[in-house]
């Protein structure tokens, strides 16, 4: 049956590769952390002692009890199988160290909106901006401005947002006091759909978002520009011009439409990768997102939270690329026919 439906076979193959890669990546992460020669419970107990400045008695059986709680007992393969059982069947990522006994999935659910809001919007914003500016830079590439703009984009594209953030905070936040640069909203306003809270949350998001946008918009400008330059060299562009169409129509219906597909795919893949986020940005701005949760859980070797967040990131990246693989044949007739032929 598979032989006769190449499209179905294509989808099944893609789905199988998707599952296999997720499983593989997850297994590597799981074992890398669990094999680290560190006893998470001791470091946790030490953290408690520091917190309450008191010695904890009767360590022995208490340690075993907590090990069992956190699923750290038994041999590694047992832990692995138990963890998988919990995750797949009971959707339970286990308790977290950081604020025991809250479940990891609740912690993630609490912090996910902040990361998605901050990173999601800045990536989409830089995509739209990058597409427009990149298009113009590619189309009018003889002009001096587009040359200078491209050089700026090239320099910015590889710099980690973190370093840009420091400069932004130094000038806008620190010197001019124009924008807040700590936390995600002003503590005095309770969380809720009140205007104050939203306004404060927005102002707090400006600096972190700007540092992310500045870097990723540069990347989008470059990729769109080289895409447009290739399209400009195509015969159908010359033919469109020879038809005497207005420049704006040619730009919109011939150049941009051909650039749309590859850039939309790239956006889907980048959005998928938004999860591993820019951890340092969240640390610098003390932003309560997934990245900040991850960095604190690593310090304390909170295996469950680490594995939970990493799993989430892997799944989101792979799902994004799977969706793109599934959608492509439907959107682009050329790919559909090539699959049927291949």
């Amino acid at each position, binding site marked *: 049956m598979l*032989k*006769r*439906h*190449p*499209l179905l076979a294509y989808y099944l193959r893609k789905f199988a590769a998707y599952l296999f890669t997720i499983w593989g990546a997850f297994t590597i992460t799981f074992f890398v952390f669990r094999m680290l020669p560190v006893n998470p419970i001791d470091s946790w107990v030490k953290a408690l002692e520091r917190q309450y400045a008191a010695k904890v008695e009767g360590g022995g059986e208490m340690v075993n009890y907590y090990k069992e709680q956190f699923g750290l007992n038994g041999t590694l393969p047992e832990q692995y199988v138990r963890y998988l059982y919990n995750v797949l069947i009971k959707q339970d990522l286990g308790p977290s160290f950081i604020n025991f006994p809250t479940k990891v999935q609740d912690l993630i659910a609490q912090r996910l909106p902040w990361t998605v809001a901050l990173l999601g919007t800045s990536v989409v914003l830089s995509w739209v901006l990058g597409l427009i500016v990149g298009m113009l830079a590619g189309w009018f590439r003889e002009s001096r401005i587009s040359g200078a703009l491209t050089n700026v984009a090239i320099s910015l594209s590889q710099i980690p947002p973190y370093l840009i953030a420091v400069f932004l905070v130094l000038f806008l936040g620190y010197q001019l006091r124009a924008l807040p640069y700590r936390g995600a909203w002003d503590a005095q306003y309770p969380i809720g759909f009140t205007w104050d809270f939203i306004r404060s949350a927005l102002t707090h998001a400006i600096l972190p978002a700007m540092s992310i946008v500045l870097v990723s918009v540069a990347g989008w400008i470059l990729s769109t520009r080289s895409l447009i330059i290739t399209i400009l060299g195509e015969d159908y562009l010359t033919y469109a011009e020879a038809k005497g169409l207005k420049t704006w129509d040619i730009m919109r219906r011939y150049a941009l439409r051909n650039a749309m597909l590859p850039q939309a795919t790239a956006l889907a893949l980048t959005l998928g990768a938004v999860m591993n986020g820019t951890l340092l940005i969240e640390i610098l701005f003390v932003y309560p997102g997934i990245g900040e949760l991850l960095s604190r859980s690593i310090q304390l070797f909170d295996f469950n939270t680490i594995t939970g967040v990493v799993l989430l990131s892997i799944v989101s990246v792979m799902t994004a690329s799977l969706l793109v693989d599934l959608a492509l044949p439907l959107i682009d007739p050329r790919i559909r026919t090539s*699959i*049927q*032929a*291949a």
Partner: protein
Amino acid sequence: MAEPLAQPAVASSAAQAAGTAPTGAPILEARQVTKEFVIGGNALRRGRIAAVDKVSLTLSDQPPQIISLVGESGSGKTTLSRMLLGLTPPTSGEVLFRGKNLNGLTREEWDLYRSQVQPVFQDPYGIYNPFYRIERVLEVAARNFKLASSRDDMRQKIEEALRAVDLRPTDIIGRYPHQLSGGERQRVMLARLYLLRPRIIVADEPVSMIDVAVRTLFLNILIDFRDKYGISCLFITHNLSTAYYLGGRIMVLCFGRVVEQGEIDTVIRNPAHPYTQQLLRSVPSSDPDKRWTDKMDMRTVERPLTHEANKCVYIERCPFAMPVCSQQRPPDYEVNGSQRSACFLHDPRYAGRVREA
């Protein structure tokens, strides 16, 4: 239109293989060679198409001869050449070197095969590694085939080879590929063959990317190779006029099958297969007084050719198609002397029932 000739004499397959009847043992021979590729067909039918479908040909150097293999794009001529060069294994049928199957050759036999069968590839711009100077191609050949005793012996042989193809060594040696024109690069390829002195050259559309004026220089060298050095050549092209200029025999390939073969002058003067007839009617003549008068029906060109095993490949387009053409694959019929055509028109049993297009 050429009248289909009367006497039927179906060429038996054995005769067919040796049909070209060169006196010496064939150096390179293809017997019922087929190459199938898997294509998805449409969403319902997943088929395998035979890009090359049971082709037999023999190449020998007694007497040295040029055989032109003429076919449109997609007719399988490049796949056939790659099989003859041992670069692609056939799905069925055999490629024989001096009577022995290619994949059964021992190390020494393989070396001998390489030294006696050499290619000229189509793309003069991709054949040279941009990293090296142009003469490296000649040095590698001289070194690997142990043609020179010392460095200056090699240098001297390379210069002689370049002069043999009308190139001044001072213009060529030391320069990089991108500094030479397409014509010059293809002639350096011929200089390489001059060094190696193979028995058979398999040239896959060597002149399709060069200008006409320079093209004749290349063709003349091929003719000299045959006459002066006894090197035979399988010349693959889509251009009938170029094939005509070289003379010798012609094999017309249509969608993977040899539909007609014979001496080129007889085939051009009196084409036996409808496909050859249509090809000849489509070639623009360079005489302004002999312009096309008849009108070629669009559909004969647009309708697809078919791969089905028991059908004539040309049936959809053929103005003389008969019921039998869609039931069996036509064998080769002897038309006159060594000219053969795979068409039932030459068989008196069916000749009468021609269905008007």
